[in-house]
């Protein structure tokens, strides 16, 4: 599907309108409660129900399965991810987790599987669902999974441990990626109630506002029909890379926008610190690297949307975002000085959250 399109960074009318409302929602419904949720270690009661007004999960589900039948759009997903993360990365991750599951089923499930799983998510209420890929190993490589699956008659049996699973304990459906004996990585839809499956909440340096869990699978048995027919690990990882980089873009934009008025107001030696090059150049650097991050993410997403290969572009976007996001987060704390370190201000929370960008794998699939 190669079209001869001009180089163009203009949003469609629909993207522009959605962007406005998404940004507003992120500021009012995510940013406003992010600190309390971070302290409490959970989103407040009713938060996820509230996100249903965004219609994110319903959008790409085909009408026959109860959805709104909008075309699957990685580019629009990137914009939404940026905008939600502008409010808060953790709450954005929770909000988007079911959409990641849905996108995976749309991309890798056959017709029967879509019919089996998607109607369960196309509900009026928030149905938690998630993708479980990450494992607790340094040098974790999605192609070398320690979680194993083997075929046993008409079913598969899965053993292993998945970590940093977003909404892991409350998800009704989990897409567990495991190494299938003799075949390599495969994706299995697992019901929360399955025998042998247990979830335990785990605390991290950041992402405290969203439920993060360790999922243990002991001889978990799923029917053969729960193995997604057209699974492509590379595509899953690449969509996840774009997603986590987009989260970084949104949060870094928040850091920059928050720092600019502060350095103009904060005075030292009788004048605003913004008048000093040592401060001003940190601001310009943050803006420059953020622009680079955003455009790399957009390029990868727009290629995915057009059906062009995007493995290299997703790799570059993630590589760049992981490093630059942490720089921007660090500079945000530094510009605020002591105020960056205390929990009255969001800078330290953003810093902790941004550290996760490098190690999030398939938490957000665009």
């Amino acid at each position, binding site marked *: 599907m190669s079209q*001869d*399109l*001009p*180089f*163009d*960074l*203009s*949003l*469609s009318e629909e*993207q522009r309108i959605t962007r406005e409302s998404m940004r507003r929602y992120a500021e009012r419904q995510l940013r406003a409660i992010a600190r309390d949720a971070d302290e409490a270690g959970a989103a407040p009661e009713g938060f996820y129900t509230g996100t249903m007004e965004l219609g994110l999960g319903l959008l790409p589900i085909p009408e026959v399965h109860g959805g709104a039948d909008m075309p699957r759009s990685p*580019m629009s997903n990137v914009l939404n991810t940026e905008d939600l993360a502008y409010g808060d990365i953790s709450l954005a991750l929770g909000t988007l987790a079911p959409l990641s599951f849905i996108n995976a089923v749309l991309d890798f499930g056959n017709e029967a599987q879509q019919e089996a799983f998607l109607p369960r998510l196309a509900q009026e209420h928030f149905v938690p669902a998630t993708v479980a890929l990450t494992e607790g190993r340094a*040098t974790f*490589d999605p192609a070398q999974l320690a979680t194993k699956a083997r075929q046993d008659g008409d079913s598969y049996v899965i053993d292993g441990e998945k970590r940093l699973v977003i909404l892991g304990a409350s998800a009704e459906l989990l897409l567990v990626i495991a190494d299938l004996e003799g075949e390599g990585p495969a994706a299995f839809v697992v019901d929360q109630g399955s025998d042998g499956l247990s979830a335990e909440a785990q605390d991290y340096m950041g992402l405290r506002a969203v439920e993060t869990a360790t999922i243990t699978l002991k001889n978990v048995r799923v029917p053969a029909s729960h193995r997604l027919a057209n699974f492509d690990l590379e595509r899953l990882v690449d969509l996840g890379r774009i997603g986590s980089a987009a989260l970084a873009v949104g949060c870094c934009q928040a850091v920059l926008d928050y720092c*600019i008025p502060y*350095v*103009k107001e904060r005075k030292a030696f009788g004048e*605003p610190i*913004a*008048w000093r*090059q040592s401060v*001003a*150049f940190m*601001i*310009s*650097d943050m*803006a*420059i*690297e953020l*622009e*680079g*991050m955003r*455009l*790399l993410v*957009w*390029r990868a997403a*727009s*290629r995915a949307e*057009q059906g*062009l290969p995007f*493995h*290299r*572009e997703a*790799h*570059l*976007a*993630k*590589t*760049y975002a*992981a*490093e630059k996001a942490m720089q921007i987060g660090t500079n945000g704390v530094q510009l605020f000085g002591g105020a960056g370190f205390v929990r009255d201000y969001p800078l330290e929370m953003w810093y902790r959250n941004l550290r996760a960008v*490098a190690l999030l794998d398939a938490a957000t699939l665009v």
Partner: protein
Amino acid sequence: MINLELPQKLINIQKMSHQLASGVFRPISRKYDRIEHCDTPEELKPVAQMMASIRPARGGKKEAPSADAGTVNGANLFAIVGGEELCWGDVGLLLSIPGSGLGNAAINAVGTPEQKEKFGKLYCAMAITEPGAGSDSAAISTTARLDGDEWVLNGEKIYCTAGQRGDAIVVWATLDKSKGKAAIKSFIVPQGAPGLTLVRVEDKMGLRISDTAALSFDNCRIPKENILGSPEIADTEEARKKAFGGVMQTFDNTRPAVAAMALGVARAALEITREILEKEGVKADYSKSLYNSTAIEAELYRMEADLEAARLMTYKAAWMADNGQPNSKEASMCKAKAGRMGNYVTLKCVELCGEMGYSEQRLLEKLARDSKIIDIFEGTQQIQQLIVARNLLGLSSRELK
């Protein structure tokens, strides 16, 4: 619709430019780095004729369509895409192509139809920098005064690209030093004008084939009609800003073009480095994440990402110009990014390839030398940072110095 791929017509420009770069520039790149001082290389003369015939008209602003007419990819993006390819061949040779001077850009931007007719087809250099004024171009002290039907120029200019080989030089001079920026005007001084002397041509670390001249103006006389723009000195703050702003606006269009030079130079270094490393079994094929790669693979990924980020930012600045959007901030952002990326990438490539990188048998060391100037001319890294920061923070040049 968001699309960051190039359309076919730009890919064609890319291919054509690449042929020129690999067929004409690369084979003579080292030769002219060694020769350094000479007249316009013979090999470039046919190139100049060809470029003159295909160069699209500059200044997309006037032709920019209304918002609902859709996006255009015009002269600015063409120049970026072509420029990167040619600089992949050799940045010094690109700057030595007759007709490619900054003075040409200025005349095209603000010249009268008569001036465009008379000088547009010549090779026009631009002389701004003086021994005592570099980035602070408002502080120049070369003077111009009207004497009958002639302007009389006095002063010294340095670091003037094509100041030796150019047919004419666009010279910045002040009509009245006490009146600051508003009194700075530019004048077209043809080579051979009485009182114009070529003092020397600089010996440089890189960009050697491009002639960088020091010029002296000693009661140098040129016709009255050779002034670019109005001879009036604006007397209101508003008019002053507008007058000098007009001059500076030229740079909103040229900064992305300079950023494109860094893209070409860095890409050349990276490609050569990959070839050398592949022979040693180093394959950075994106099969592993950054954290499961060797140090050398990780460096290659970082450099690729840095180059691509700089490229997309440069495309964006040019795309904005083509579509009539003010792009002063984006032009400086891409220049700052590409300038430092070019230095980082080319020097890292020399390092990664060891002796082979440092040796004059290959081009890596030359590319590293050539790249340094790109982060200096047309506004240093620090000047670009100032422009970006003032823009973001809403500060004046008096507040953020």
